[in-house]
């Protein structure tokens, strides 16, 4: 698998995880083996991760996600792009998102 994130590509949550929002927390629960390192792991996202995750829904290229976030946040696009790529690299290596063909 290529773990390099491409802003022109579309990504979506993997069907191998269940994503739940509980009391404001995004909780990612592995559904199949090979997602976490051990049997009882769950994952949550920090505030930045939550905002990005909600937009990575398989409907638009990652560059569009960066643009949306740049309109909402008062931060340089380079910083936002770094956050988006950083999160997606983490999610991709954990098989929590997939690249849509």
């Amino acid at each position, binding site marked *: 698998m290529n773990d390099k994130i491409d802003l022109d590509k579309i990504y979506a949550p993997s069907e191998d995880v*269940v994503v739940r929002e509980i*009391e404001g927390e995004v*909780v990612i629960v592995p559904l*199949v083996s090979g997602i976490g390192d051990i049997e009882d792991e769950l*994952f949550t996202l920090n505030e930045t991760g939550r905002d990005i995750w909600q937009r990575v829904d398989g409907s638009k290229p990652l560059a569009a996600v960066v643009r949306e976030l740049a309109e909402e946040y008062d931060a340089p696009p380079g*910083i936002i792009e770094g956050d988006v790529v950083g*999160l997606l690299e983490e999610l991709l290596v954990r098989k929590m998102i997939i690249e849509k063909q």
Partner: protein
Amino acid sequence: MTGTAYVKKIRSGEARLWPSRKPALTRLDIELTERCNNDCVHCSVNRPAGDREAREREWGAESWKKLLDEAATLGCLIVRLTGGEPLLRGDFEDIYIHARRLGLRVMIFTNATLVTPRLARLLEDMPPLEAVEVSVYGMTKETYEAVTRTPGSFDAFRRGLGLLREHGVPFVVKGAVLPATSGEMDGFETWAAALPGAAGLPSYALLFDLRSRRDGRKNELIASLRTDADDFVRISRRHGEDAVTEWRDLCARSGGGRGGRLFSCVPSGGSAAVDPYGQLQYCLGLRHPATVYDLAAGSLREAVTEFLPRVRDMHSADRAYLERCGRCFLKGLCEQCPAKSWAEHGTLDTPVEYFCGIAHAQAVAAGLLEPGEKAWTVADGAARTKQRS
């Protein structure tokens, strides 16, 4: 926006997930059936596997799935599937898969005798995210089947455990200290330590509950099998004084008598239990009619947000309870609770002498009481626990 650590791992429990507000329900215990393919001498639940009346009354898979949907909506993260023997149900896999697809972690309590290659493969491919808890009733065919009273159960258990191992399904084992097995503790611990993923000593069932459905004859048998207080202390100290140190700490942390409160397990609130017939309870052992909610006539949300908080606030008016348990500083040690009173006496608050005796023996061993002293008569209990902890 900020930079690093976008994804956090959460391990071993959900407590760190909720820095401020917890969900209305964090854990749901489901007793899928009272029926079991074993007939263990000490069991506080089991009915025969072929009990038609029980089977016909049990909720079907669709009812359980709807309940699981509602539990997930309320924020529930963990569901425990227990029995009886939950694998006795032909729709177990269906219910399990539904729970996992909702993003629930699943605890399975089983004797492992009915684990099939197909189930082991499912648990490998779609892991429960909680170690399967396997009850072990003996190290040999003779001792095991003296407890289960079911010919062939030992071989079936070994076969089932082998399948879990073969498929890399994490599991933990739990022993039971009974007349037939009390001489096997060293062997059990050696065997358990060699299992893959073993961490520390295995746990034991020692203080057997009576049947909460208040079956008099079976309860007489269970009571006759119970470990007495001196043996309980001796067994707890087999590997040193860690247990005694923990008893002192438990007393220090529990903060004195109960007063009139019935439920001292309130901090674990956020959990609920449902029996095979859709009756929601505070816990699986508590079947006093005043503490049971019929889910067919209401909703899980109403039960956990309105009914259970009222149950948790119940107070005792029983004089013996108020004078003894209400003043006793051994609350952190004693198993006294409404479920135990219900099983033993059919009330919510009558003190249970067996558990009272166990707690007093622990306190004597921990240097918190003199032999013969009654904890509820001690005025300086808090000072003693502070001094010795």
